[in-house]
C-alpha cells in the first residue's frame, strides 16, 4: 500500500513539474502571438509550491537533503545516533506545529482570491500544512526504522550514494 502511495506521489510531482513548464511556455508564446493567458502564470505558481513540498518529501525519504555532518561525522556511532534521534524528535515537533498553524491559516485564507484567476489563495497556503505533515510522517517512518536498525534518520549510509542527482 505505502509503495503505491509513494509511486503516486512521485508521479504527481513529475506531472506538476511538467505542467509548470508547459504553462509558462504557452503563456509566453501566447502573449507574443497576441493571445495572453492571464491565468496560466497564476496556476503555474500555485502548482510550484506543491512540487516543492512533494520533492522535499521525496528527498527526505531518500535522505538526500543537504546537511553539514562535518563535526558529528567524527563522533563514535552511539553518540552520533543519539544526536540524530534527538534532532528527529525536534524536527517532528517543529513540523507538527507548522502543520497545525498552517491549517488554521488556510481556513482563514479561504475567502482570499488569488491573482486574476478566481482561485482561492487557500490552495497556496494549504501546501504548507500538507507539506509539513507529509515531511513529519516521512521523518517518523525514518525514525522508527532508525530505532529498529540503529541507522541514521537524515543521512544515508555512504555506500548508497545519490548518483541520480545534479546536486551530487
Amino acid at each position, binding site marked *: 500500500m505505502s509503495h503505491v502511495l509513494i509511486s503516486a506521489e512521485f508521479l504527481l510531482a513529475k506531472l506538476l513539474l511538467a505542467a509548470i513548464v508547459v504553462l509558462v*511556455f504557452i503563456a509566453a508564446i501566447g502573449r507574443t502571438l497576441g493571445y495572453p493567458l492571464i491565468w496560466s502564470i497564476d496556476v503555474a505558481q500555485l502548482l510550484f509550491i506543491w512540487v516543492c513540498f512533494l520533492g522535499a518529501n521525496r528527498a527526505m525519504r531518500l535522505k538526500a537533503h543537504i546537511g*553539514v555532518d562535518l563535526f558529528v561525522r567524527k563522533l563514535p556511532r552511539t553518540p552520533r545516533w543519539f544526536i540524530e534521534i534527538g*534532532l528527529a524528535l525536534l524536527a517532528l515537533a517543529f513540523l507538527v506545529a507548522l502543520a497545525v498553524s498552517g491549517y488554521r491559516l488556510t481556513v482563514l485564507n479561504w475567502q482570499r482570491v488569488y491573482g486574476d484567476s478566481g482561485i482561492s489563495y487557500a490552495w497556496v*497556503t494549504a501546501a504548507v500544512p500538507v507539506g509539513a505533515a507529509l515531511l513529519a510522517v516521512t521523518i517518523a517512518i525514518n525514525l522508527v526504522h532508525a530505532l529498529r536498525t540503529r541507522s541514521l534518520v537524515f543521512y544515508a549510509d555512504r555506500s548508497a550514494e545519490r548518483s541520480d542527482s545534479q546536486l551530487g
Partner: protein
Amino acid sequence: MLMLWGLFFLLMFLGLPVALAIGMSGFSFFVFSGSIPLGIGVQQIATASQSFPLLAVPFFVLAGHMMNKTGITHRLIACSNVLVSWMAGGLAQVCILLSTLMGGVSGSAVADAAMEARILGPDMIRRGYSKGFTCAAIAVGSLITATIPPSLGLILYGFVGNVSIGRLFLAGVIPGLLMMAALMTVVWLVARKRGYHSATKELPTGRAVWRAVVDAKWALLFPVALLFGIRAGIFTPSEIGAFAVVYAVVVGVFLHKELTFESFMEALGEGVLDVGVIMLIILLSGMVGYALIFEQAPQEVAEWMLGLSQNPLAIMLLVLLFLLVAGFFVESTVLVLLLTPIFVPIITKLGVDPVHFGILMMSIVTLGSMTPPVGVAMYTVCSILDCSIEEYLVESLPFIAAILAVIGFLALFPGVVLFLPNLLM
C-alpha cells in the same frame, strides 16, 4: 536575534539538514516573540514560493537533467577533448574547458563537478595526475559553470535582491571566460613543472575541430538561443527557463534522437528531487528573512559598515572579505538568501552597481563550496575520487589564488563586468 543565529548554527553543526535548521531557527523567532502570530510565519513560507522569478529554479534544474539525457553532455566532452587535449596537462585542460561549455547549459557548480569527477576523474588519475590536483581542477573549475549563464546562484541573488536576472546573466559571461583563462594558465604551469603530458601529441586538424564543433552545435548554440529569446522579446528573463526545458526536449527528441520517454520521465524525477532539496531551504528561510527585516538587521548592519568608512571600494572589499570567510562555514544558498537583502542596499547606497556586486558576491560565495571545512562541491568530488581533504587543500591553493586574483580584478574594474549588460540590455 542572537538566539536565532545560535540555534541555527547549533542545529546545523549537529547535522540537522540545513533546510530544517533554518526553518526551526526562523520559527523560534515567532514562538518566542510572544506578540507575532505563528500564522505570519506560515504565511512567509507560502509567500516565498509566490515570486515569479523563482520559477527559474525548477526550470534550469530540469533543463540540466534533460540536457544530460539528450547526449549534449557527451558531445561537449568530445568537443573539449579535440580542442585542448594537446596542451600540457591536457586532461585537466579538458576539465576546465568542459566546465566553461557546461556553464552554458547547466546552472549548478556541484552538478558539473560531480559529472566531471565521475567521467573524467578516474582517467586522469590513471594517467598519473595526482588525486589532489585532479580533484582541485574539477572542483574549482566548476565555479566557471556557476558564473556563466544560466546560473542558479545569480537567479537567487536577482530574486532576493530585486536585481535584473537578464543583466546578471549577461554580466556573468566575461568573468566566466576570465576564470577559464586563469585556471587554464594554472593547469599549464603546474603541468609543465610536474611533467603531466598532453593526452595527444599533435595539434588537432582544422577538420577534426570543425567536426567536433558541428557535432556539439545544439549545445553550443543554446546560450545564443536563450539570449535571442530574451532580446526578441518573446520571453522575459524569468520565463526563459521554460524555453530552456523545451529546447532540451526538442533537441533530444528530434535532432539528437536520444531522448526516450523513459529518460524523459527520469529527468523529471531527478528534477523533482533537486527542486525539493533547493526549494525547501528557500521556502523555510522565508521566516528568518521576516525576522531579519522585523529586527531591522539590514539597517543596523548598513549603519555600522558605513560608519567604518565612506570609501566605496574599502567597504566593498570588506563585504567581500566577510563573504569569503562566511563561505568557508555556511552553504552558499543560505548565504545568498540571508545576506543579499543586507548587502545590496549598502552597496547601492555607495553607488556600486548591484549587477557588478552580484557577480563578485556569487563568485566568492560559490568558491566557499570548493573550500574546507564546509564545501559541497569539494566533498562531492573528493568522495567520488576518494581523495583526502588535506591533499585536496594543498593542490587547490594555486587554483583558488587564481580565482581570487580574477575576482580582485573584477572588483577594481566594474566596466569588465558591466560591458555586456550595458551593451545588450
